[in-house]
């Protein structure tokens, strides 16, 4: 989050902050294979809706190929907001934790594939590889903590 989402262009290297939103960055191919053994592959075509606003599901999605977009439609004059979800993105982590209705719709911009890890799949991973499951959970929690901190900082600056 932050104002960088309005200016998606490369900045000089020294201005690039470390990316705090990297998920499981140190994991090997074997670790990812262990995770995906419990995550269903799901192909999509351009225009398909993967996540619908208001639906309740406890699952995260990892975009293996293709591109999606999050479409958030608020009431009033705001209009639709679109957040690109390129290959390599991880989405759905808030619903994975709190099991509340999805806050936005996610639809496909191109054809592609995701891996869907739901709660049952996570429990199965936790039984087969507890350390990896714990790492995954802590990583999701860390990302949510980073987002909360960034939101607090932005709102502090906005209110002055």
């Amino acid at each position, binding site marked *: 989050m932050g104002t960088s989402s309005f200016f998606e262009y490369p900045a000089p290297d020294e201005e690039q902050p470390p990316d705090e939103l990297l998920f499981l960055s140190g994991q090997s191919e074997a670790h990812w294979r262990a995770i995906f053994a419990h995550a269903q592959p799901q192909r999509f075509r351009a225009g398909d809706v993967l996540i619908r606003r208001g639906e309740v599901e406890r699952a995260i999605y990892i975009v293996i190929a293709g591109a999606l977009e999050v479409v958030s439609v*608020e009431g009033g004059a705001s209009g639709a907001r679109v957040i690109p979800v390129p290959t390599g993105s991880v989405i759905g982590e808030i619903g994975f934790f709190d099991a509340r209705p999805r806050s936005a719709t996610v639809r496909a911009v191109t054809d592609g594939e995701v891996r869907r890890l739901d709660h049952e799949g996570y429990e199965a991973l936790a039984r087969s590889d507890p350390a990896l499951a714990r790492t995954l959970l802590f990583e999701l929690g860390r990302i949510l903590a980073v987002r909360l901190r960034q939101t607090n900082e932005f709102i502090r600056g906005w209110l002055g």
Partner: protein
Amino acid sequence: MAARSPFPTYLQMRARVPLWAWAALRVVGLLATAALLVALFVAPEIGLLAFWGVLIPALPLLFFVAPGAWRNACPLATLNQTPRFLRFTRALTLPKWLREHGYLVAIALFFVIIPARKLLFDHDGTALAVLLLATLAAAFLGGVFVRGKAGWCSTMCPLLPVQRLYGQTPFVTVRNAHCRPCVGCVKNCYDFNPAVAYMADLYDPDPHRSGYRKLFAGAFPGLMVAFYTMEGSRDLPIAPTYLAFAGAMLLSVGSFYVLEVLFRVTANKITALYAVAALTLFYLFNVPLLNGRLGAPLPPVAIWAIEAGILALAAVWVVRTYRKERPFVEQAITPKPARVGSPDVVARASRGAHRA
């Protein structure tokens, strides 16, 4: 089809004017600049009238309504981008300190040049021509050495603070016709996303970035009052003249910060008010002055109608500037997706897991 964002970047905008038309306009701009410079040397009364009496009074309204049009056609920008167009720019990255504080250079230049109009540039065609030549040379050299528009247009040009303040909510959004491709030369680039660049500056976590913008917005109405209530003459003492300007601007800045303390509103709301205060003051003083130079002056009722029209335009602008703050904040606090560290590794693992 992707849903439309309320704040499209220039890459997402449709180009209503073809590139060749902007190129033609730039050539016309350069020729007009050359003619102006000649006039300032050989027929200074005509040159001074053309510059201070026609161009400068028109610019604030242009910045207010369609600032992108000026950004695309400005002769300074044309010279700045010529080295890139002809592929002999060194395309260096501006030093970090200059990227961060270049705006202060622009503000300082503006606050030095405007009072100097009273002392020199309003009366002396040669002096104004030399100033313009120096500015054109600086813009050109900025393009020779620095990549993108960071060498002048988006950092140190003294018109930049005015453009960014007035141009933050354009009535007509004009697509950037210079940067192909974008090289990411500055932060919160106006040419990249005109509708939100100023707010992004105001809410930047760097207090200097937002502070410089507030400082200029706060001082600007004071500068207007000082300028138009002071008689100009070559005989004016320099230091007292600048002190008088400084005093007026400090009072204006002080009022800005008092409002910030008393009314717990966002910085965007107060800077917008000061922007329209400066604009309406400018035309309140300038419209009668321009009318006085016409061969057949307009009657007072026409002057009041023009002033009322500008006030109405300013009021609509304020409402539009206030209204866009909410969707801006909503998008700014919307989280970007997390990413895996190595998409290739993840893709191979997915194929392996699938086959298993």
